[in-house]
């Protein structure tokens, strides 16, 4: 987690040196890296046989809990944004 924050901080510091420039090559590279990241996330899910085997028996509970958690999160966050005017 600290390393993640450090990567971001390093990027921020370098970006600060390049202020005002439009970084077209970086935009393309970001899309490429996102796809690699999502693919490898999918790969680790697909390899997780434990998850795939329990999924059918608990999916209803999982879907209901997730739907409500998402709903309340979004509503509360929206209220927070309005309240403090982020």
């Amino acid at each position, binding site marked *: 987690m600290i390393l993640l924050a450090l990567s971001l901080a390093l990027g*921020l510091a*370098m970006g600060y040196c*390049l202020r005002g420039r439009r970084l077209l090559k970086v935009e393309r590279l970001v899309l490429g890296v996102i796809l690699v990241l999502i*693919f490898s*996330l999918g790969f680790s899910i697909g390899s997780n046989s434990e998850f795939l085997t329990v999924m059918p028996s608990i999916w209803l509970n999982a879907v209901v809990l997730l739907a409500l958690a998402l709903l*309340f999160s979004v509503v509360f966050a*929206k209220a*927070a944004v309005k309240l403090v005017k982020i």
Partner: protein
Amino acid sequence: MIKYVLPALVIGVLAGYINNQFGVSLLNIVFSEYIFTFSLFLLLFLMGLQFAADRQATAKMRMAGLKMLVFPFAVALGSILGGFVGGLILGIDVFASMGVCAGFGWYTLAGPLAGQLFGLKWGALGLAVNLLRELVTIATAWLAAKLDRYAPIAMGGATAMDTTLPIIVQYSGQDTLITAFSSGFILTAAAPFTITAIAALAH
């Protein structure tokens, strides 16, 4: 963007599944550990670079200041309340369902921790709810951002600092980077404590 992201996810899951059938653990480690971690670090670096180079985005962040700390607090509260209401509706252990939702999308933590604190069945549910949270955020961020630009950040929960961050920024705008990252960071830091605290309340 989503037209590339979803196929990448589906192909990844299929590739992982097929690989698992053949039992090639080396490929699994290479993708799930090394490539995943490396691309995550690279992505955060590149996104920081893009953000800091963008004068408009940095100006907006300066205006928001400390107020954005309220955001993850609201997301945490909403997630736990969602678990509470869900537990009541489904007629299952309310504390355990709150604990499961308090993983905020961090499935590698919430699964094992819920399993340990509430029992094995809850471990599986913890894994499912939080993994699905990440997947649903990736798949529907484009739509959620149209309804409310902060909605994808709230949906992403703890994952807003890593896996869902690029997707969120893509649809909610460059200037949401720091709000999303800090929200994800705080929720990631909070998740182990919230799950454990809820378990302590239950016993």
